[in-house]
């Protein structure tokens, strides 16, 4: 009981002492006051809804080949036009939202969980465990951006699931590094020492005292990371290393659009705009969250 009070009192904003309004509501109010962050949140929400309710929203079957309307200009029945086999671009973009968001969320979610756990252990245990883990992270970070993902695709072979793995694994080192650095700065603070003095186990200290103090940087990293992952995954599919035809994946749609660029600009414009829009949304939201959660800014 004593321990619980201590944890609450030291975790920054305590529940016992705070105003009646819950933390999440206050946080939302502050987020809404930032117009750019709000725009980002709305964009992300719209894409999430599209991903969930996609099949109900799409005007056509994304895989239906309408040979009477091959490479059709944007019109009332096909707002974004059709591709070289008469498939509706809008419906395929709607179907692609589910694929891209799934890839981004699963890859980043996995990277976040693994990276956070490894970073916690490295930072809290220190010593040779820390040394080995951090040198390994250094080596992985020696591969710039997309290159590590390409190494993993080269090993596993092309495919959408392998892209998810590749993007996820290459995101891990950043979380390890960030969480470890945060743990090191929190570890020696008085409240952790107090918890230790009260007899809390290492695991308990890590879980309930240190972890809740490193959540802010992790949330910001993850939000920005989903956008980056969506970009990388779409890029790999564009290169033919990810989703394979006829999957309605945005990057792969752009790959097919290359051939028909002269005749059908709409095949290239709309899928790319979808990628950019969702990534902008995630970046604006991530920037907003960073400004809100990081007290050193402002």
């Amino acid at each position: 009981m004593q321990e619980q009070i201590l944890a609450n009192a030291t975790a920054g904003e305590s529940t016992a002492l705070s105003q009646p309004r819950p933390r999440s509501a206050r946080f939302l109010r502050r987020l809404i006051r930032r117009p750019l962050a709000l725009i980002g949140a709305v964009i992300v929400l719209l894409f999430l809804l599209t991903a969930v309710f996609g099949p109900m929203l799409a005007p056509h079957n994304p895989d239906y080949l309408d040979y009477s309307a091959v490479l059709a200009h944007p019109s009332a029945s096909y707002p974004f036009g059709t591709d070289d086999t008469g498939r509706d671009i809008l419906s395929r973009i709607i179907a692609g939202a589910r694929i891209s968001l799934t890839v981004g969320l699963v890859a980043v979610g996995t990277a976040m969980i693994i990276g956070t756990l490894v970073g916690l252990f490295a930072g809290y245990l220190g010593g040779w465990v820390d040394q080995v883990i951090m040198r390994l992270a250094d080596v992985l970070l020696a591969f710039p951006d997309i290159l590590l993902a390409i190494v993993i695709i080269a090993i596993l072979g092309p495919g959408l699931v392998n892209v998810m793995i590749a993007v996820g694994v290459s995101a891990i080192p950043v979380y390890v590094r960030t969480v470890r650095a945060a743990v090191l700065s929190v570890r020696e603070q008085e409240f952790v020492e107090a918890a230790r003095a009260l007899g809390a186990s290492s695991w308990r200290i890590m879980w309930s005292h240190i972890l809740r103090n490193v959540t802010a940087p992790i949330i910001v990293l993850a939000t920005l990371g989903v956008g980056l992952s969506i970009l990388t995954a779409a890029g790999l599919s564009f290169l033919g290393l990810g989703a394979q035809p006829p999957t309605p994946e945005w990057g792969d749609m752009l790959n097919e659009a290359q051939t028909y660029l002269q005749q059908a600009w709409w095949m290239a414009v709309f899928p790319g705009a979808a990628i950019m829009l969702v990534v902008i949304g995630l970046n604006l939201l991530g920037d907003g969250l960073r400004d809100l959660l990081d007290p050193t800014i402002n």
Partner: protein
Amino acid sequence: MLTFLARRTLLLIPILFGVSIITFLMIHLVPGDPVQIMLGHAPSGTDVAALRHQLGLDQALPVQYGNYVVNALHGNLGTSIRSGRPVVAEIGDRFPATLQLTLTAMVIAVILGVGIGTLAATSRSRFIDNLLMLIATMGVSLPTFWLGLLLIYFFALQLGWFPVLSDTSLRGLVLPAITLALPGAAVLARVTRASLVDVLHQDYIRTARAKGLTRSRVVWRHALRNGLIVVLTIAGLQFGGLMAGSVIVETVFGRTGLGSFVVNAIQARDYPDIQGVVLVIASFYVVINLIIDVLYGLINPRIRVS
């Protein structure tokens, strides 16, 4: 300074060691038999045995790694399966094109990024500042493969100013370089702005203004010089990112280079080629980072001590 240089260089060795282990292990981590995968459908037993022997895969793992490192240090990265030529020769043919693209993009990114970042940080209008940063956020979110297609559509197909497929001419370099540079410029603009805003709030800037120096003189002579230290670091990190980004840009523009080479190699499962390119780009990146670190130490003496 010398000990600083020596220490930083020594730190390089374990990282390059790690990079070499990862590239070496690539072929061993392939699920199934890499030799059968490389040879495609139903290869004959003798072919498999021959290739396995040629790649040295019939030896013990530590022996293989030893040979790999010794060969690599002698400039031997194996033989390309597709062309039968040495991997080093294949890479040597394409490296200049990639370096040309990366360096040009780098120059564009720095000029554009530092320019926009400075403008945003020093602008007295909050609106312009916000607008420029919104544009930068859009730039960071740009998929290069899409930007490339749009530029080809407008400037090559519609206006005919540039060739559709990038060749080795200077005109052929313009569109790919801009495509590769824009996201990097956006990152640099954000970093430059943040770092300048930071510096402009410091006491010595206020002192300089108080003693009667003009605003532009303070920005150019005092603030930018210190603000650019951070920008230099990020720009250095970007260089590796641009090199990796050439994988996509070269493919969009049908340009020869390491990037398009490695994409084709992955599709053909030509592991010696893939390993060679990965090793070269990663090593290059690591060395660039060392140079940046050293430059950083030269500019900012405080770094050397810690």
